[in-house]
């Protein structure tokens, strides 16, 4: 029993121990999951920037599961009292860590650099806790994009669909022509990414906010939700038989190769097209999911800064300000496919899709149409997100009909809260 007590004390003391844990002075240790070619190279820009200021960079990359693996490692590091200086994180994870009191107060840097003015408010909601800046946003991904093969659309006389009905017609045309209408990878997060856009389109922004952000039971159990599930069923009926378990980039490859017409995927899909030497507007098209032209559902990568004994170290401040510098924001996001986290960056270096993304973001931010993406953990906490995943993916795979899905959704969300 004694030993057990000791375990407990060690566990409980972990948070308190945070203060003691730090990388060596004048070094920043950065935990992140950007390991694939382009994005890692882009991050290297940041590293060199800091090294120019005499600050060493200890790299701690842990890829896997869209950051899940990194979050697990972070948990171990914090428990060991050895938290990294800065950690890549998404949405609610940042707020959760903020709530633990584990993150540094970046308000001085923010005030100096004027972050409050240039970072959209919807994004600030995930970068601030209790009125304090706790992390530095790197980018904004928007997830309600549709990617299309222009040649396939042209061959079948399809214009860019503006409404759900247009989209249904286009899909049916393609289907009749023997082309797989929709390329899709059957993984829970991909199903949910599609569901984000479909729900937004079916019910509009108020419904989206009520259901996914406020977790309003009425909205979750509404007929609109059933309509959203019905639309998912339509999409399911128009993907190929082989969708299950497919990586998203193989789905993208289907669009690139002309085997499929559309793919609903976040802006990172653009990298695959560019990598295959395709030109936006000529070879492929990017447009908002029909019925969500006004809205942007987003997720944003940020670097949360761990508390270093009550003060923000010089290195942390330097890192935070380097992350939000317009030059890094531009350089990084051109490569990454996303758009800058601050709205005042020049779009000069960006391609057509990038320019559109930046314009959409600015417009949505000012008109109140910028919403956190449910599928990417920017609408509700991880437990709820995964509970919704469970239902969406079960429905998409034919386990539930739409009606059952709606009632399961209400239950699952209530259990997870």
């Amino acid at each position, binding site marked *: 029993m004694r030993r057990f007590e000791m375990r407990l004390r060690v566990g409980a003391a972990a*948070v308190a121990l945070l203060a003691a844990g730090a990388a060596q002075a004048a070094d920043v240790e950065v935990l992140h999951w950007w390991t694939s070619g382009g994005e890692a190279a882009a991050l290297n820009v940041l590293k060199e920037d800091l090294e120019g200021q005499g600050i060493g960079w200890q790299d701690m990359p842990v890829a896997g599961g869209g950051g*899940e693996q990194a979050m*697990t490692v972070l948990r171990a590091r914090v428990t060991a009292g050895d938290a990294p200086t800065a950690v890549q994180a998404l949405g609610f994870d940042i707020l959760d860590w903020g709530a633990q009191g584990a993150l540094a107060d970046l308000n001085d840097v923010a005030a100096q650099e004027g972050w409050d003015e240039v970072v959209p408010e919807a994004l600030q909601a995930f970068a601030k806790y209790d009125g304090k800046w706790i992390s530095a946003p790197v980018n904004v991904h928007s997830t309600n994009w549709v990617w299309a093969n222009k040649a396939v659309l042209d061959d079948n006389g399809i214009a860019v669909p503006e409404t759900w009905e247009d989209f249904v017609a286009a899909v049916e045309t393609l289907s009749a022509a023997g082309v797989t209408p929709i390329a899709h990878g059957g*993984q829970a997060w991909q199903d949910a990414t599609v569901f984000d856009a479909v729900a937004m389109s079916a019910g509009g922004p108020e419904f989206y906010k009520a259901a996914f952000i406020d977790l309003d039971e009425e909205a979750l159990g509404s007929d609109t939700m059933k309509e959203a599930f019905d639309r998912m069923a339509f999409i399911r009926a128009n993907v190929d*038989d082989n969708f299950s*378990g497919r990586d998203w980039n193989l789905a993208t490859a289907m669009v690139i190769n002309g085997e499929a017409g559309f793919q609903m995927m976040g802006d990172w899909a653009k990298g695959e097209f560019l990598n295959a030497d395709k030109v936006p507007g000529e070879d492929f098209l990017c447009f908002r999911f029909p019925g969500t032209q006004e809205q942007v559902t987003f997720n944003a990568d940020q670097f949360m800064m761990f508390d270093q004994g009550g003060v923000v170290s010089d290195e942390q401040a330097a890192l935070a300000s380097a992350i939000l510098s317009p030059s890094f924001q531009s350089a990084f996001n051109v490569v990454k496919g996303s758009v800058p986290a601050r709205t005042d960056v020049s779009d000069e270096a960006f391609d057509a899709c990038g320019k559109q993304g930046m314009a959409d973001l600015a417009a949505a931010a000012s008109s109140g149409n910028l919403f956190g993406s449910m599928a990417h953990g920017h609408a509700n906490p991880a437990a709820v997100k995964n509970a919704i995943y469970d239902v969406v*993916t*079960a429905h998409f*795979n034919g386990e539930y009909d739409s009606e059952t899905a709606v009632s399961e959704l209400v239950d699952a969300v209530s259990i997870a809260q």
Partner: protein
Amino acid sequence: MAANATPDFRTRLQTWLPKLVLSPSLAMVLVFVYGFIGFTVYVSFTNSRILPFVGPDGQPTHDLIGFTNYAKLFSLSHWEISLTNMAIFAGLYIVICTLIGLILAILLDQKIRGEGFLRPLYLYPMALSFIVTGTAWKWFLDPGIGLENIMQTWGWESFSFDWIKNRDFAIYTIVLAAVWQTSGFVMAMFLAGLRGIDNEILKAAQMDGASNWNLYRRIIIPQLRPAFLSAFVILAHLAIKTFDLVIAMTGGGPGRATELPATFMYSYTFSRNQMGIGASSAVIMLMTIAAIMIPYLYAELREKK
């Protein structure tokens, strides 16, 4: 006569040296296994979310909430699926691996030319990590690019093999890949067992007129009992720890059709920030392991005494 009955120093040293030598391992096991199990049990009774003993509000908590986590756990259909999957997976995996291992060992024991060449080919999968072999399997089993596609391009149009995409069959593809990895190892264990059998017994049995079939069924296989038991321990332990394989091959899909307790536990503890539920699933899992292993260990160890 010197009535000195207390042992001399050297003898005393020799009596406590063995215990001393054993103690570091024992201490490690007690702390790092049993201590941690105790820790997990405790966490399963708290409402810990992101870190142990830190409540949903971010404040340290030691509140015990009783069996709430367990109640939640068993209300999740997802958990039920992973338990069923575990039963299917472990059962099939252990039986098939044992069968294939035994058959291969018996065949290899027939004075096969090139045995030295074949053996490593059967054994090597054990050396590979599933982080990537999972992808290779995934592609091979994918009807669009793998086996089904090949068969169809070769002219067998009606050939169909889409288990990995089918909710009801996907778990069997996990079994297939797992069997691929370890059956060679089991083969080696049985081969070793076969090589250890006294040839005179076999000759005697042949004099008695036993056919090859009867020879194996009645004489040889019963003598492999120790090999069966060792194989069982190793396979059971691998079955319980199966995690990477599912993540790499199906990610738990289609839907949640291939979720196992290990992936469930990981997902609730680390991805969903519901450490309390994750811990309670770990406790249930440990209890199941204990229920199976303790009688086995008891019988095994007692017999040896």
